[in-house]
């Protein structure tokens, strides 16, 4: 690939000067970055077979075109290996999808992060962690793919804290928030197969505007309904009302208990949907929705999400420990929708 890389170039003497320049220009997330040299950027582009000026996505409300070149530069800075690039590109396509609604989750005081779930063979090939310490540090793919997404948001789309990112609390997942599904041990249909009809041999990435993971504990139940009953009790008192999606991440022990009862992901979604409703009276008393409590409000109910399909069920997390977690989506019911994008890989 020889097409010209058109980004402005800055001459530096050494790594320290490159780093100082990146900090000075406001190009980092606060952590040191890898200097984006032309050779490193070209390796990123080669990994996806894209010309530098190829448009990966367009963010309508910002009128910003995200070129392959800019994705590659930010991926280098984030510390990605070139083979991670197809995942980064697919995730950027996902957050630019009108269903994801970039402006809301990127800008809102509600502080969403981009929960990024990788499915398919690429997750195993790139060693995207799906097991112990799922959301924790230690895996290069998890750490740098999510970081690249955030650097693109910051440097290309202008999602800068205090300016076009008005998050009240921000979110630790804004450094990175990438997991894989534990397809090797999961008894269930993988997320991408369920959501967009992929084959299990396809790879895909699902992006969801998401709040923090909230862990729940059940060491006592030997049944699916028992384990998920605990989940529902925790989930039905949300901090806000009307999220478009929830993600439920079931770790090893709970996964095995639920699967032993023969429950599918559809069964899990249905159970959670049916057992997380609340009365309108409750929401009014706790100031989640406006108005005085009226007589009918004690029996009128509201579901957690509009449909059971709005609950993403993912098998991931450590094999040991009677814990699983759920992750509330960001925003109102129509504000942002989780999007699954098939990862395009270059044929070898």
């Amino acid at each position, binding site marked *: 690939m020889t097409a010209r890389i058109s980004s402005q170039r800055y001459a530096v003497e050494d790594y320290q000067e490159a780093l100082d320049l990146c900090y000075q220009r406001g190009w980092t997330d606060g952590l040191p970055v890898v200097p984006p040299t032309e050779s490193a950027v070209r390796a990123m582009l080669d990994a996806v077979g894209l010309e530098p000026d190829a448009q990966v996505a367009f963010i309508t409300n910002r009128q910003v*075109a995200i070129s392959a070149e800019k994705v590659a530069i930010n991926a280098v800075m984030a510390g990605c290996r070139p083979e991670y690039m197809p995942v980064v590109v697919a995730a950027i396509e996902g957050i630019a999808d009108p269903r994801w609604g970039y402006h809301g989750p990127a800008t809102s005081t509600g502080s969403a992060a981009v929960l990024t779930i990788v499915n398919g063979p690429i997750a195993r090939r790139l060693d995207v962690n799906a097991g112990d310490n799922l959301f924790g540090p230690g895996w290069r793919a998890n750490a740098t793919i999510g970081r690249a997404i955030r650097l693109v948001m910051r440097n290309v789309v202008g999602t800068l804290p205090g300016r076009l990112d008005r998050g009240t609390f921000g979110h630790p997942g804004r450094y990175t928030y990438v997991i894989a599904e534990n397809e090797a041990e999961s008894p269930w249909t993988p997320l991408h197969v369920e959501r967009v009809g992929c084959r299990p041999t396809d790879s895909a990435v699902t992006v969801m505007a998401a709040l923090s993971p909230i862990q729940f504990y059940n060491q006592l139940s030997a049944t699916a309904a028992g384990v998920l009953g605990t989940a529902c009790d925790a989930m039905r008192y949300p901090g806000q009302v009307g999220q478009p999606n929830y993600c439920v991440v079931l770790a090893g022990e709970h996964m095995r208990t639920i699967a032993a009862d023969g429950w599918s992901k559809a069964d899990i979604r249905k159970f959670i949907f049916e057992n997380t409703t609340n009365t309108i009276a409750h929401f009014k008393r706790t100031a989640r929705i406006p108005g005085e409590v009226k007589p009918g409000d004690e029996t009128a109910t509201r579901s957690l999400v509009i449909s059971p399909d709005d609950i993403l069920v993912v098998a991931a997390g450590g094999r040991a420990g009677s814990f699983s977690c759920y992750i509330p989506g960001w925003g109102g019911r129509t504000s*942002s929708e989780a999007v699954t994008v098939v990862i395009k890989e270059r044929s070898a």
Partner: protein
Amino acid sequence: MAGFEILDPTVEPRRQPLTYVPRPDSLKGKRIGLVENTKFNSDRLLLKIGEILKKEYGAAETKMWRKHNAGVPAHKEILDEAACSVDVVVAGIGD
């Protein structure tokens, strides 16, 4: 010393000219469009503003539309209807 070059990771937003429609000298007799953004009480706030514009500035009437959600621009139906049924529009966003 062998230096090297690094590449700029940022872009300049696409510049586009914005042309403002001339503002009316007076709101007297004008039809006022109100675009509600779905946030709590935004409808009440805009109706109140509409009342003030009628009472104190002589506006003729108000008409309200509701966006799909706060994070998106007003959709096409709102723009098309507003273009042929009102003279000025009041919109805003807030929490």
